[in-house]
């Protein structure tokens, strides 16, 4: 007679299997393949593979462009995370109040709509807006007797322009998440604060913010991970330029793997990116845990 315990265990594995198989096929196998490719030199036409050892990794680490991409990516993250999470929180706080339901729906939809549109599409639109000589932004700046800005062609401005697009595109997502967290705060806590004479800022600082801090930290971590993977908006707006002023880690990886047709170097770059994401997430997680505990 079959033991009920075994049957339960078998059922558990059975239920886990679809998710696990998907993870295996979509995440683990490609990750392991990337690691294997990073140690090889591959001719993609003939699939002739030779062992390259650490050559690809050393090539990446000694490449000036890689470190430029590394610096650019973290500059982008610093600005994009602050913009997305900070502005998202500000908008959430502003919307988290009594208002007619229709207005609330309209505001939520208005801010969330850009999230639903493909980045490639909005990047093309923003490219037109940013055009130095024929763009709308500079047209209105000139109407106000202000000088034109080289939004995408000045190496000191281009990254800011990309961040503006990123924040416009994603802030609604972070607003919705933080708004949901704000609306989950027990009304009694806020009312207790109000009875004690706390003002708007004090209630936010000492009641609401500590309560939603885990959600804010989740947003920071999520925005950081997606920031590390920034690609399509930069590729369309500036192609990493001018020069290498806006090249990101994923762009570097893509260009090496599919521009230079060097899968080994591209894979080595991908593996460094994976390590960067893991380390950054771990650091944020530890800092976050400490902040929440305090």
């Amino acid at each position: 007679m079959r033991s009920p315990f075994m049957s339960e265990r078998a059922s558990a594995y059975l239920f886990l299997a679809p998710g696990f198989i998907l993870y295996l096929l979509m995440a683990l196998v490609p990750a392991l393949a990337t690691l294997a490719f990073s140690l090889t030199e591959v001719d993609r036409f003939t699939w002739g593979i030779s062992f390259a050892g650490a050559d690809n990794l050393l090539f990446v680490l000694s490449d000036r462009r890689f470190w430029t991409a590394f610096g650019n990516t973290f500059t982008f993250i610093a600005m994009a995370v602050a913009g997305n999470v900070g502005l998202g929180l500000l908008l959430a706080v502003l919307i988290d109040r009594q208002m007619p339901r229709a207005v609330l729906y309209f505001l939520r939809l208005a801010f969330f709509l850009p999230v639903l549109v493909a980045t490639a599409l909005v990047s093309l639109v923003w490219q037109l807006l940013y055009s130095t000589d024929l763009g709308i932004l500079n047209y209105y700046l000139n109407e106000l007797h202000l000088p034109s800005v080289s939004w995408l062609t000045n190496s000191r401005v281009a990254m800011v322009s990309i961040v503006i697009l990123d924040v416009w595109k994603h802030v609604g997502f972070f607003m919705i998440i933080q708004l949901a967290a704000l609306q989950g705060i027990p009304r009694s806590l806020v009312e207790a604060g109000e009875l004690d004479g706390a003002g708007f800022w004090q209630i936010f600082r000492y009641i609401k913010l500590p309560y939603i801090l885990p959600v804010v930290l989740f947003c920071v971590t999520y925005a950081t991970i997606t920031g590390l993977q920034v690609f399509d908006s930069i590729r369309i707006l500036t192609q990493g330029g001018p020069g290498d002023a806006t090249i990101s880690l994923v762009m570097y990886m893509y260009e090496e793997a599919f521009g230079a047709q060097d899968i080994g170097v591209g894979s080595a770059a991908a593996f460094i990116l994976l390590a960067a994401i893991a380390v950054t997430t771990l650091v944020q997680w530890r800092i976050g845990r400490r902040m929440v505990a305090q």
Partner: protein
Amino acid sequence: MDRRSFMMLAGGALLAPKPAFAAAAVDKPVTLTIIRTASDSDVKLMNSVMERFKKKFPSVEVKPQFITSNPWGEYINQLMNLVGSGQTPDIITMPTEGVSTLGSRKLLRNLDDFLNFDPGAKELLADVEANLLTGLSYQGAVNLFPTEWNTVAVYYNTKMFEAAGLDKPSADWDWATFLETAKKLTKTDASGRTTQYGYVVSGKNFSLMPWFLTNGTDRLTPDGTRSNVKDPRFKETLVFLRSLIAEHKVSPTFARNNAGESALISENAAMITTTHSSVPAMISGKADFIDVQVFPKNRTNVSIFGAGGVGVSTASKEPELAWELVKELTGKEFEDELAKNMRATPARRSSATSSPYSDFPPNAKIFYEAAATAKPLIAPPNFAQVEDIMMRHVDAYLTGNVEIDPMIDQLDEELSRAMSRVRW
């Protein structure tokens, strides 16, 4: 095999003095695969080809695979995936940019085997400028037969020339005349804002190339193996282009991938340098005020060309049938249809020099006239990488973010590093 197919193949075999391949047996269903670019016009052209081919070879099924060619590196990547997974198509469509990539891997048959022994090829060869085949040859062997090609010319607004009291540019104009012309065509309003640009410096790699060629230089050595950007004439060319934007202010800010077509059509710019691929937009924009002239010269008056062609893969199990499809893809009907489409110059002289192709722009005759002397784009196997490196640095300089000498040093360093890793 149906009677018609049999007669065609048997006839071909009898007429051919020394066939390189045995006539294909078409007595059972055969499938030919072909990789094509994925534009709307490509799909339409290919559908017509398949209809005609089906009538000639009813038992042969043609399976096209359409892949985006913007950028070409992406197209080559997809082809690599097909080859790497053992699904090499019978017929490969490829531009000049991918010839050495395919040739160095011996993925294409030498078409001389067919061209020398197929009687039908004589008519084809007679109607196509021989120089065009050089852009699709690898180490002397014709790997692809051209179907279409492009050169870069100056497109200009005839109304603006007239309003500025300028004659139409002549075919022997030079850089100095070009600059003076651009200055006269540039207009500013009372506040100093430019309302009409004389020229738009192209942000496209291919359209920039003639500036270097007409100054007797290129970004790579003629054999395509080493960086050539330390050539003083390379620097001189870039300094001239930068002066058009920053010093003479006849061109708007440099923008990558923008050749200025919309500025020309919307009458914000008087001249642009681009390929024939911009003509369909000019026609649909009703810009009938546009005419065309050859590139101005400095040290030389050579022009550039890039061709697109079709070849038979070495992996094809039906090379004779694949060649028949290549002939259909280079046939008069295909070329006439391509000529109507206007996206490029047909490889066949008869299609490129007659109506409707020659109707617009008025001076359209310059396109096929360039076929005999134009130089093919130097395209090593890492073409996409070379283009990216080149345009990244050129972009940084032309937008005023770096000085010329450090830029050239860095460009040379990167190009040299990339070329040292090429597997020929």
